């Protein structure tokens, strides 16, 4: 369950954002759509606890992110929030397996290689575990990024423009994959995008 009320954020003295309230029941997904510069990424960073809002509250399963102390917030993020970026990023000195082990370690969870194999084989990249993700194809990188986001069974998965560089076929594929993976780990999927092609695949849509 995710709920926000009267979130605002201010950049400098002139750029002020006020965001509409969000309320998601369990297992609901959300598409936040809007043109560039409207504050989509800012909203996503507020929801993911990467920034503090000027005012307002964010509840993820009854935990108010805005009141958590910095160290608790870091831990909370590692355990409950999965992030997928427009371009996939990895720790470049590490193989995919090591990247995934690090994600478990930093969230303060026990090392669970079985879970890693399960997820990667499901996403069809188990054979790539020993390789460095920099050398993957674009599709493999996208799936590796999804594997990282869902590894710790987060409560919410945020995706920031996941499809903007993809053609129509791949756009539908990736969105389908994201929705499927989110449902299998019983997480909310919240996607922010300016890509109107995604509209049909989501029940809940907020336009900024």
């Amino acid at each position, binding site marked *: 369950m995710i709920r926000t009320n009267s979130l605002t954020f201010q950049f400098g003295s002139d750029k002020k954002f006020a965001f509409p309230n969000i309320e998601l029941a369990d297992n609901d997904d959300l598409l936040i759509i809007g043109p560039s510069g409207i504050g989509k990424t*800012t909203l996503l960073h507020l929801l993911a606890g990467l920034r503090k809002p000027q005012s307002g509250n964010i509840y993820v399963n009854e935990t108010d992110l805005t009141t958590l102390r910095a160290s608790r917030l870091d831990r909370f*993020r590692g355990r409950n929030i999965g992030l997928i970026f427009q371009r996939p990023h990895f720790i470049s000195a590490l193989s995919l397996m090591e990247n995934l082990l690090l994600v478990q370690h930093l969230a303060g969870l026990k090392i669970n290689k079985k879970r890693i194999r399960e997820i990667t084989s499901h996403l069809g990249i188990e054979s790539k575990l020993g390789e460095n993700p920099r050398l993957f194809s674009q599709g493999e990188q996208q799936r590796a990024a999804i594997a990282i986001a869902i590894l710790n069974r987060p409560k919410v998965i945020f995706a920031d423009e996941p499809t903007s560089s993809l053609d129509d076929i791949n756009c539908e594929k990736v969105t389908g994959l994201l929705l499927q993976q989110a449902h299998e780990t019983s997480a909310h999927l919240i996607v922010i995008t300016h890509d109107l092609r995604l509209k049909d695949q989501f029940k809940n849509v907020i336009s900024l």
Partner: protein
Amino acid sequence: MNMIVLTWKNLISRPLSTGLSLMLLTLGVGMISMILMLSSRLEEQFQRNMSGIDMVVGAKGSPLQLILSAVFQVDAPTGNIPLEEVEKLKKNRFVASVIPLSYGDSYKGYRIVGTNTDYPALYEATTVKGTIWNSSMEVTVGARVAEVLDINVGDKLISSHGLAEVGEMHQDDAYEVVGVFDYSSSVIDQLILTSPESIWNVHTHEEGEEIEREVTAALVKFRNPMGMIQLPRMINQNTTMQAALPAYEINRLFGMMGVGFDALSVLAVVIVIVSGISLFINLYNTIRERKYELALLRTYGASPFQLLMLVMGEGFMLSISGFFMGIIFSRIGMLFLGSFVAKSYRYSLRPDLFTTQEILLLIFVIGIGIMASIIPAIRVFRIDISRTLTEG
């Protein structure tokens, strides 16, 4: 996969710049540690050979040369002094013992010294084969000499005039080897000892004159510290001889060598500091490139403190490995140098396992590692995740 492994992986993911910093650090630490070992070894060796000798008398000339030639057998003698004068010295109330030394001849580059049995006794040298010389033209050979030249009891040695390997040969007079000394880690190991009479014999025979009873130097031990104050002045002013104090001259020598050691140490410290600077530049640049990765780590749940430790850890790890590589490097260097020195001189230079000064060196090197990484680490500590991710 924990942060320590990640630190290590980050370091080795940049083999060139990490290698450069590591190489500089190894070189600097290796040099410092070698200088430390070398100066303490030399001092030890000098002390061992000086023990029991309070004063040396010999012909007038350079006091340092007299000490080097009479005590350490590494320089040419200053000249000869009449035995009579030395005998007189024995009767002085400040003097406990006098050991006369006659040298100047050699056998295949090893010095032949005419003396009495007090001289080997001074260094607690005992024979391992045969006996100590008893009469004229008998010699007892030092352990190192016997080993290198493969000399055995019963061999005849024909000495040559002077200390060079090729001097005029004393063809008519052959020495007979009656014994071989055991190793005593002193100057005795590289000498051939005989009685003073043998030396006089060889030389007067040659020149067909009366026996000229001279010695080259004498090693004196005082009965009490008053001798130290009175005797040298008395000898230098009232006799044809000069008196020199080994402790004083060796301190002077170390003072002079110390300048060289100091200059080398400064150079080595500069190298260590340059390695610190190269590490700093290396970290500072990669932090700019890796900023996005570091923000990513924050989204995975890493705290700012963990990122700080990640960067400082690189400095720490590099400095520790550089330190130990430098220590190993210096030990190998000492083994090489030791075998060279043992061949040229008799001094044995065995490397230490670990010295206390090196603990200070370790602290210094870790300090450099921390200094080099602290500014990049603070930048990382303050990273704005949201902005970095947006810009990345």
